[in-house]
């Protein structure tokens, strides 16, 4: 750079300080760009739910519910909950990678709303949940799944899924802030998710489980969410189902968002 170009470069006036909301939108734009530049992540995102849906429906469906067709009715809402849970891991891994590369040092030294980088991660999460959810629902419909509550029920169920993804997202963001290697974030996250997701009513009816396990399954937030999503899609959800399902995401946000901010700003 010569003196002339640096004079032009440095002569520019500072723009007015943008709002926190505008900062958050910029990070959302970054999350959306990642889909364009890292198409590999779409493969994971698309293949895993397709495989799970097909395998479970045809391999276990008959044994678990009498026939694959009957199993689809209970399983599609469940696999949606499961997929959203596992998808939440991506932001945590991305965050951990950004932190270990020092990218967040730049963000931290900017005069921006401190939560805005995380809002951007959440935007990425929402996009991932919607893409994966739409794929699963399409396969389900193609295989014969019929949501008894119609379009309204499906939209309401997807909103519940996003609420759950939002709550789960904080767990992985905190893990991402604490752990400097993305793979470890994934391992730690799955160690926590596996019992929650599999000891639930997603795949099987808890009535067949031993009492001690059923006691856990019945209060497991994943079970509560699955019950609500099933009810909303297939018909028959009560407002109590919906409220119970929203307790965990609300608690997680109330506790983890301030913790995230504290971990991020601690210096």
């Amino acid at each position: 750079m010569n003196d002339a170009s640096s004079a032009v470069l440095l002569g520019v006036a500072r723009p007015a300080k943008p709002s926190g909301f505008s900062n958050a939108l910029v990070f959302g734009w970054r999350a959306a760009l990642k889909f364009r530049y890292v198409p590999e992540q779409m493969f994971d995102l698309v293949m895993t739910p397709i495989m799970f849906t097909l395998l479970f429906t045809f391999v276990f469906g008959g044994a678990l519910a009498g026939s694959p067709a009957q199993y689809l009715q209970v399983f599609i809402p469940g696999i949606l909950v499961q997929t959203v849970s596992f998808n939440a891991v991506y932001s945590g891994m991305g965050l951990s990678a950004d932190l270990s590369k020092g990218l967040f040092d730049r963000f931290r030294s900017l005069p921006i709303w401190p939560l805005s980088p995380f809002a951007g991660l959440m935007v990425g999460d929402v996009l991932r949940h919607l893409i994966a959810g739409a794929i699963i629902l399409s396969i389900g419909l193609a295989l014969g799944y019929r949501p008894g509550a119609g379009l309204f029920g499906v939209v309401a169920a997807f909103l519940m899924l996003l609420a759950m993804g939002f709550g789960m997202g904080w767990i992985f963001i905190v893990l991402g802030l604490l752990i400097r290697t993305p793979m470890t974030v994934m391992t730690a996250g799955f160690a926590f998710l596996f019992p929650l997701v599999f000891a639930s009513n997603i795949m099987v009816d808890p009535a067949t489980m031993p009492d001690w396990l059923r006691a856990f399954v019945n209060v497991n937030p994943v079970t509560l969410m699955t019950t609500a999503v099933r009810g909303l899609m297939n018909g028959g959800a009560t407002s109590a189902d919906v409220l119970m399902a929203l307790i965990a995401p609300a608690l997680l946000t109330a506790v983890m968002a301030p913790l995230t901010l504290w971990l991020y700003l601690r210096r």
Partner: protein
Amino acid sequence: MSDQLAIAARGLIKRFGEVSAVDGIDLDVPRGMIFAILGPNGAGKTTLMRMLATLSRPDGGSATVMGHDVISAPASVRAAIAMTGQFASLDEDLTGRDNLVLLARLWGFRGHGAKKRADDLLAAFELTDAATRQVKDYSGGMRRRLDIAASLVVTPGVLFLDEPTTGLDPSARQSVWKMIRGLANAGVTILLTTQYLEEADQLAARIAVIDRGKKIAEGTSRELKAQVGSGFLHVHIADQGRIDDAATVLEQHLGHSVRRSAEGGALAVVAGSSAAAAKAVAALTAQGIEVSDFALGSPSLDEVFFSLTGRERAEEEQKQ
């Protein structure tokens, strides 16, 4: 008084467990100056810079940057500074242009203005051709330039550059130097850290030498050289086998420790006066040690570092 200073630090301390990474450093950097912090790996340069850039909270002491307190007014400090860290802080998945547009938007440039700002920066840093490539495909020199460009989206009062040329080849290093000089000419205060004595010598109006978390010397390059003593005697010994003998003789005659070149064969020592130097060379010859070449001159900054710390930079780096 502190209004005239870009940076004023008093007794800064940062501990990591038992280690005092920064152990009571004072620093006064006038506005508009290129100021270098020179020290070996692990000296505490990055830790010091992170405290000044509000990324790390001091365990003791105080500092202001452009008149704002780093502890009580970090947001005001952040609005007045930019930092290019030791490792590129770029999003590798995005293109160079997207990285700059992202930052321009975060600073408040909107729509077309943000794109124009990004393109102006790319042009000034000779990255226009690579603008639409992903950063992960950039060379080390290009990455460094983009990283510095990213710090200039709005003109900072103080620009922090942590080891801006470490790992670059000589031509990339030259281009970063040219850029740093251009910025300084335009009035930006620059605080840079370096392990290269030559870099500090070439760029900086003032240099603080730090070692093990403490400032051990400060001044212009000329003052530092004077502080060590002028009259550095450089001696080449023909017979490698007699290097140890030669070093002993020189130490006895001149009373200062002798510094050996990495390749062996060359010795350097503070001589004080030309008369003392001549006597020392004569003593070598009298011992039957053949001197192939000798010269009296001012010390290099490497030699300055050696006489300030009594240690080689190289051996310090090997320990790391």
